[in-house]
């Protein structure tokens, strides 16, 4: 193991510091504040890996630990995850897997720092709508994953006075895709900074957990700390497995997603109503599951769609949303997205737009042409 590691040390990619047991590891962590992550065996003399895990936050709460355990030792692995381990690898060690795990952990840490830094800046900066609007545009993905079996597409039409919508598409380590749509309260630079930190915290948490409910729980706890500004964000976060078409999703105060079937019939999906994020710490979130069939499209949107208003002060509403595809089922995620925007624009006509309109779509099907 040491020899395999030394090759990377020579390549200069990572710097390793070695310790023989938990006590020695703690001493070295205290000495060297440059260390980002800990890779530790669970079984060690003097102080074992599980005890070490409990001590690590006292040294630096931003340190992340990856544990090494015997294959199939679920009891210790579960204990390690409960004590805050970021990830684990099992013996015999697959070095390719270890490398992926290390780089994923380090990129999580980087995202994390970025998020904490943008959170700190919240206090300092004041209103400039242009800055806010640029920030909002800059965090939106412009390229979307697509494969012979699925497609993703998202777009946002900002209101003239800045609203707070954003969406994200996150490639997760296990080949899964994370899909998020969100609406931040308030406007201006403070809201945009809150949006950026929400987005980065969400991405970091998503990379760290396969469980959408846990992702929202973690992001909520972080956003709720010292949130005197009373800003909050509603988020619907889903994780998609392209192999099986399985989707799990959790809701933090956001509009329920839609599913459009190949025949155009459309349903609002059930969500187990969690509370918007940033308001109250330690809230539980739960998740719902669904499997997309061939030709199904999963649609996430913000209230800018359902609350879009025409000149007679009528809202677009859920019923119009559910009827968009009745006579013309979407052929792709891009198609579905266009249809939503087209129908809303036609309905609103000349009336002014008061909120961002955002839609993110995922289609499962055969796209190999």
């Amino acid at each position, binding site marked *: 193991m040491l020899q395999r590691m030394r090759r990377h040390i020579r390549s200069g990619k990572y710097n390793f510091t070695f310790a023989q047991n938990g006590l020695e590891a703690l001493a070295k962590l205290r000495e060297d504040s440059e260390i980002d992550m800990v890779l530790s065996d669970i079984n060690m003399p003097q102080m074992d890996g599980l005890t070490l895990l409990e001590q690590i936050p006292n040294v630096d709460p931003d340190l992340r630990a990856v544990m090494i355990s015997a294959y199939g030792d679920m009891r210790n692995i579960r204990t390690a995850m409960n004590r805050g381990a970021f990830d684990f690898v099992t013996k015999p060690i697959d070095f390719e897997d270890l490398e992926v795990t290390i780089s994923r952990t380090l990129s999580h840490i980087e995202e994390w720092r970025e998020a904490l830094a943008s959170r700190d800046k919240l206090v300092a900066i004041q209103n400039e709508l242009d800055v806010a609007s640029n920030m909002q545009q800059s965090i939106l993905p412009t390229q979307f994953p697509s494969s012979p079996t699925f497609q993703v597409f998202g777009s946002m039409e900002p209101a003239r006075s800045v609203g707070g919508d954003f969406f994200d598409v996150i490639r997760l380590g296990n080949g899964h895709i994370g899909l998020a749509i969100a609406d931040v309260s308030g406007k201006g630079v403070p809201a945009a900074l809150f949006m950026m930190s929400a987005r980065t915290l969400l991405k970091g948490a998503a990379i760290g957990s396969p469980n959408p409910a846990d992702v929202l729980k973690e992001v909520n706890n972080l956003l709720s700390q010292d949130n005197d500004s009373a800003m909050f964000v509603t988020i619907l976060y889903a994780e998609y497995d392209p192999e099986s078409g399985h989707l799990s999703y959790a809701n933090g105060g956001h509009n329920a997603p839609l599913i459009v079937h190949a025949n155009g019939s459309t349903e609002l999906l059930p969500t187990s109503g969690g*509370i*918007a994020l940033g308001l109250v710490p330690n809230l539980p979130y739960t998740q719902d599951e669904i499997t997309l069939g061939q030709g199904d499209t999963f649609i996430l949107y913000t209230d800018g769609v359902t609350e879009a208003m025409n000149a007679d*002060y009528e809202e677009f509403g859920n019923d119009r949303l559910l009827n968009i595809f009745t006579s013309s089922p979407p052929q792709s995620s891009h198609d579905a997205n266009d249809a939503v925007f087209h129908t809303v624009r036609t309905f609103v006509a000349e009336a002014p737009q008061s909120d961002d309109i955002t839609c993110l779509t995922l289609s499962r099907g055969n796209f190999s042409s």
Partner: protein
Amino acid sequence: METSGQQGNGTWVAVDTKNLKVEGENKGTILVAKTSGRVDGSNAKEFQDALESILGNNATALLLDMEDLSYISSAGLRVILLIARQLQGKSGKFGVCSLSPSISEVFQISGFDKIIPVHPAQADALASLGS
């Protein structure tokens, strides 16, 4: 003319613009803010100023009556949360009442109905806040 601070009995206008009107009313120990029109990102600050002016410095109970409010955005919800926290900080009481079906839906979806006391009508709310 906008007024500020706690008045005697009767009602007064805290804000009156094209889209938003907030009136204060003193009901014994409880102040009622009757809001009509719509609250979104463009007038959330006026909404906040109006509620704060009705509250004044010494008030300990505020009821936000939303019977004639047709729309509230997340920026408006944030103001409600700020006011609720201000009162909480002074061990005061806060509640909202008379939500239209669409505003009731906004409260439900966002989960605000789980952190802000919602009452069906003003009478229930006054009884609850006064107790």
